[in-house]
């Protein structure tokens, strides 16, 4: 990791600490240890997305490893609130929110519905929103129905396409 990337990762973690502690009201319990683990996993996963090739800075989406998913799943409900805080980071780094959604989907369960709905909001990246729609659907088809129907006329072609796919699964 070069200096610029380290700086970016540090700023991401700092942003979490400074901005992300407003109560989200989702009712999950977490602790400082769980939050620290999530921050480490997020930082590591994000760091793989930033590299330098031939002197040119590169940003690409590298998926989280099996080990990282297993660690998040191991934390279970304790990971929901720390992950949810990444969804409200300002300014947004879209890969951050996408990782948060993918980890929330791995946890699953009704406690992730609130954060996933937040991730589906219009101020999120369309790739994050499409993934969040999948996540809501996976938790509860009934809860997802109004979101899927609304997404059919979404401004993003990617979200519209995902909504059409999901709508077919209701029939």
């Amino acid at each position: 990791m070069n200096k610029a990337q380290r700086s970016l990762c540090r700023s991401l973690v700092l942003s979490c600490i400074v901005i992300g502690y407003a109560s989200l009201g989702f009712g999950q319990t977490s602790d400082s240890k769980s939050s620290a683990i999530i921050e480490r996993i997020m930082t590591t996963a994000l760091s793989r997305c930033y590299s330098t090739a031939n002197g040119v800075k590169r940003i690409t989406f590298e998926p989280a490893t099996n080990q990282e998913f297993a660690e998040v799943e191991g934390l279970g409900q304790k990971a929901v609130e720390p992950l949810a805080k990444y969804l409200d980071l300002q300014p947004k780094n879209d890969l951050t929110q996408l990782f948060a959604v993918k980890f929330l989907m791995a946890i699953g369960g009704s406690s992730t519905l609130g954060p996933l709905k937040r991730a589906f909001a219009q101020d999120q990246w369309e790739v994050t929103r499409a993934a969040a729609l999948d996540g809501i659907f996976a938790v509860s088809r009934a809860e997802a129905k109004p979101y899927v129907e609304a997404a059919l006329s979404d401004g993003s072609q990617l979200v519209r396409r995902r909504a059409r796919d999901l709508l077919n699964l209701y029939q």
Partner: protein
Amino acid sequence: VQAAGLTGSYGGVKVSAAAHASSLDTLHFLFDDTAGFSALLKMFSYDPQTKLEERDYAVTGVWTLRAPMLALSNPDPALAFPPGTTLRPQLFIRNTTGKPINAAVRFNWRTAGTTGAAPGPALHLNPYETRLVDVAALQSAGALPKEAAWTSVTLTTNGLPDEIMAVAASYDQTLRYGAQTPFSDQLSFQWEGGMWEYDPYHSSIITAGNGGTKPTQAAFTIFYNQGTQRYDVEQTLKPDEQMWIDVGQLIREHVPDKNGKPLPSDLTMGSYEFRDLTNKGVGSLFEGKIIYDKTYGHVAYGCGTCCGYAQTVVFYAPLGVPFSGTAGQGVNSYQNCNLDWEDVSDSFWNTWTSANTSVATVDYYATHTGVATGSTTSYASAYLDGPNRPPSCPRQLKTPSGGVNVQVPTYFFSPSAKQTGTPSACVQAGYTGYFIDVSYYVADANSGRVSKSGMAPGENLGGTGWHDAYATPPTTKSDGSFDDTPFGACYGTSVHYCEAGPPQSFRLTNNGTVFSIMTNTTSRKCTDGIQLVIQGNPSAQNKTYAFGNTQ
């Protein structure tokens, strides 16, 4: 009757033909000039080929007939007969065969506020005998409450279908006031009713009952304003219990439906429908309707039309089942009232068998499990209400089947890829890039699509290790599809720049079994374009995507 010297005041009539009997139609009516009375007498068709299982809708092992709305001695005030009118309800039950037949009668009566059951007489009918059962006398004797205005009559017999025929009639002494109610064995999951009326001179009563042996949830719908609006009621019915719909009362008293909506107070006509919400393939509802004329005292009985199923087809033909994995199968059938295909899978549960259990097994719910690579067939069989002899809908044995291919996931093929928006992370000074969303499906070695949800695609980029939750969604959808998104890179340069992406290899995990996937990709990612080469598949399924400038 006079010329033949027949005696008595009632009996049976048979019209038969040596051949082509189904080409005959009959009409039978009687009249009394003096009283100004006439009535149509229902004629019943007789099919000697009919089997009990086709007409034993409640699967009780005995053939059962019901007359749902027999008016009892003290008529319902809703009928607006003159005060003091007394009816004489009676049943005519005929043995159409040359052998003795036993039959039993039971009643489910109704007063203004209560309902109850009462046994009727057990009958031993001699060959060709027509027996009159005087229900009025039974009511006078206390077998039925004197204040009861209505009863349904249930007739069971040890005979075969149509070997006993019965009608029920209830008229006063003048024959001016009263009605008939026909017997029918038909139970159905859905009834479509014709017109009902309600105005100062007419009103309608509609009923549906549970002819089954278990409680059922019944839905009643009134359609009005040319079918554009509806009024919905639901009720749980115990066996033999009826829901009783006085349409005039609903309108007059502004009774709200289950959605809180009353019928318009100026409504005068419409149609109706009953649905059995508990039993889909073979329903348990019987129904009846009367429209009465308050001016002349005429009560006309009307029947709904039962609905049935025509063809049945399995959901997937063939069904792809992953080796050591599972896949669900189901059955759709074409419903002749809605004119649409309906899921009737639950009617076939516990009937599925596999022709070769060394290839695939199938459980109670039609979930197939792949045991070994290969093909076989699975079968199911069950009775559904059939549509072949409207207006009756005798049960038909349906035997859907379909091929089963136990598949080993072998490669991923991609039908399409689309450019996605550029992440804002790439919009920092000088960062440009192309990202795409690549759609994939799972296929077996025979290029058959493995349509199954819950399989986890994994990727390995440049030998850095397996990532088994990389896909969107992380596991396949029911059609076996998933997306690789986003796929691309941004670069911190303002000039055109490209580099080779890491080679991408795949695997698939299903129920803990990891399958090698022969698909792999190479890529070229540029500031203003991207190329993805999908290879390793059967040649027709290899593909190259190029977006933007990849030179």
